[in-house]
């Protein structure tokens, strides 16, 4: 079992998004020897004068980006999600604290990354960046939405982190023009339970909702592409209308999408929440879907969590 070959990978959307905003001369792209992987390479091909290669030196890249942002540029800096984390303190102190509009993209996020094994599978990036004041944290589910959200970063006057995924998944959007940073996107409506998902788990959530509907459980499915600031209006509304939640993410259940929902729900409601995500363990090598099954990040995992959540209503 390997990754699907049709559909779209969000990292490709990032690459296209950069090209879409390239005519703005403030846009600059920074690379750390992984441009072919994160897909900033397409921007480099067209705009070499506005692309800066920093070599395999992520900490330097983050502060070069900060310096450029302080000089009126809008830098987009990318590497693997896991290697952005090497520069966590640089992002925290050098970019976010002064509030500079630097847009970091961490590709190859999550267990879905597959055969490279656990060193490459960031399962904590959304959590760590979410803890930094002023940061916007985004994790699109397919190439179409990644392209749109990347383009919207141009007008976000502050720092952001976007996680993209390596592998293709079924597309959730034909066109992303209705997407907005900060607003969860409702992909399916139902009244018994809300599944709040992000990244590669959005498609899985849609299939799970289909299965659950055969059992008479009708689900709302949300693509919560913006993890921070999280769309609390939508969560509050769904808490009223559905009365139970499941979160689904290719990320640790500690501190990511599930964590964000738990924080809000537990202080504002008594609505039950069950989380599907990585249960505090590292991954290993394997095919994407093999690994997702091994770790319960699949349709069955979501369906079981849904039944548990409903039984706690």
């Amino acid at each position, binding site marked *: 079992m390997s990754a699907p070959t049709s559909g779209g990978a969000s990292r490709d959307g990032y690459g296209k998004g950069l090209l879409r905003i390239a005519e703005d001369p403030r846009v*600059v792209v920074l690379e750390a020897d992984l441009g072919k992987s994160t897909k900033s390479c397409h921007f480099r091909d067209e705009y070499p*004068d*506005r692309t*800066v290669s*920093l*070599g395999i*030196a992520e*900490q*330097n*890249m*983050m*502060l*070069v*980006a*900060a*310096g*450029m*942002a*302080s*000089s*009126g*540029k809008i*830098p987009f800096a990318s590497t693997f999600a896991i290697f952005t984390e090497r520069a966590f*303190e*640089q992002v925290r*102190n*050098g970019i976010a*604290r*002064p*509030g500079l509009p630097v847009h970091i993209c961490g590709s190859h996020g999550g267990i879905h990354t597959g055969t490279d094994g656990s060193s490459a599978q960031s399962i904590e990036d959304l959590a760590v960046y979410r803890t930094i004041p002023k940061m916007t944290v985004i994790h699109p589910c397919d190439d179409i939405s990644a392209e749109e959200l990347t383009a919207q970063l141009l007008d976000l006057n502050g720092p952001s982190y976007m996680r993209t995924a390596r592998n293709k998944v079924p597309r959730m959007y034909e066109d992303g023009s209705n997407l907005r940073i900060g607003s969860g996107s409702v992909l399916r409506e139902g009244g018994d339970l809300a599944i709040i998902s992000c990244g590669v788990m959005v498609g899985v959530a849609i299939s799970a909702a289909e299965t659950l509907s055969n059992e008479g459980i009708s689900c709302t499915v949300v693509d919560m592409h913006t993890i921070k600031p999280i769309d609390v209006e939508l969560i509050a509304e769904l808490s009223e209308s559905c009365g139970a939640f499941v979160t689904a993410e290719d990320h640790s259940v500690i501190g990511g999408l599930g964590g964000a929902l738990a924080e809000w729900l537990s202080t504002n409601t008594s609505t039950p929440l069950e989380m599907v995500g990585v249960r505090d363990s590292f991954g290993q090598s394997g095919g994407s879907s093999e690994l997702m099954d091994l770790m319960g990040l699949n349709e069955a995992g979501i369906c079981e969590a849904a039944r548990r959540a409903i039984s706690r209503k």
Partner: protein
Amino acid sequence: MGDGTEVDVGELEEMARRCRVDIVKMTHAAKSGHPGGSLSSIDCMVALYGTCLRFDTSNPDWDDRDRFIMSKGHASPAMYSILHQMGVLDEDDIMGFRTLGSVCQGHVDMNWTKGVDFSAGSLGMGLSFGLGCALSAKMDSSQRRIWVMLGDGETQEGQIWEAAMAANYHNATNLRVIVDRNRIQNDDFMDVQMEIGDIGEKFRSFGWTVKEVDGHDMSSLVDVVDWANSEDGGPVAIVANTIKGNGVSFMENNPSFHGKAPNDEELRIALEELS
């Protein structure tokens, strides 16, 4: 000077003296802060601000100003004393150093203080930031120059050398570094903690043009800053041999005044020595 203007070295020395007075007064008032590394770097900063740095005191946010990146952000008293002597900060501002709501934060912060170009506090980051400013200036075909002040202990951070490598590779001819070579870091002398050796040679090996200077001789400093300002063959580093705590006898070469403020009696002596 290259542009033909006369520099009055005596006037700069007097400005440096007044800055030193500010430094000891503000750390004394705050009962904390870093006098040692402020006193060692102040002559270099006066030589720079007093001569070729393009900076408009009435418009500190001027887009096309030269940048001064105080990477060793704990030496904030030096930065604030300069801004005070140039009229950007007033006496109340600097005497509020390190208190709640003060524009003079413990470590230099571009969001809090007019005339500060970088938010520091975490060592090892300023050269990279300066490189980002330098590359942007080149993209914009601007003549602005970027000056970065580094501590010698700070050069133990690997990121400094990532940036040194990248600066020459990207031909950052507008990037200037001053290393405050006072041979002391936080805990002790560098040769006790982690001696880095010949810092100039290390920059040279990454393709930089390097000069050493006596970091307390104002007329040599004026010359070297003028030279560095007009060089355009690549990035330039000045290794300034300095004395930590320079100007206050009991702070000189004394690691314990890295991060300790003078008490009342020490302030009295310091002010006497600086009068």
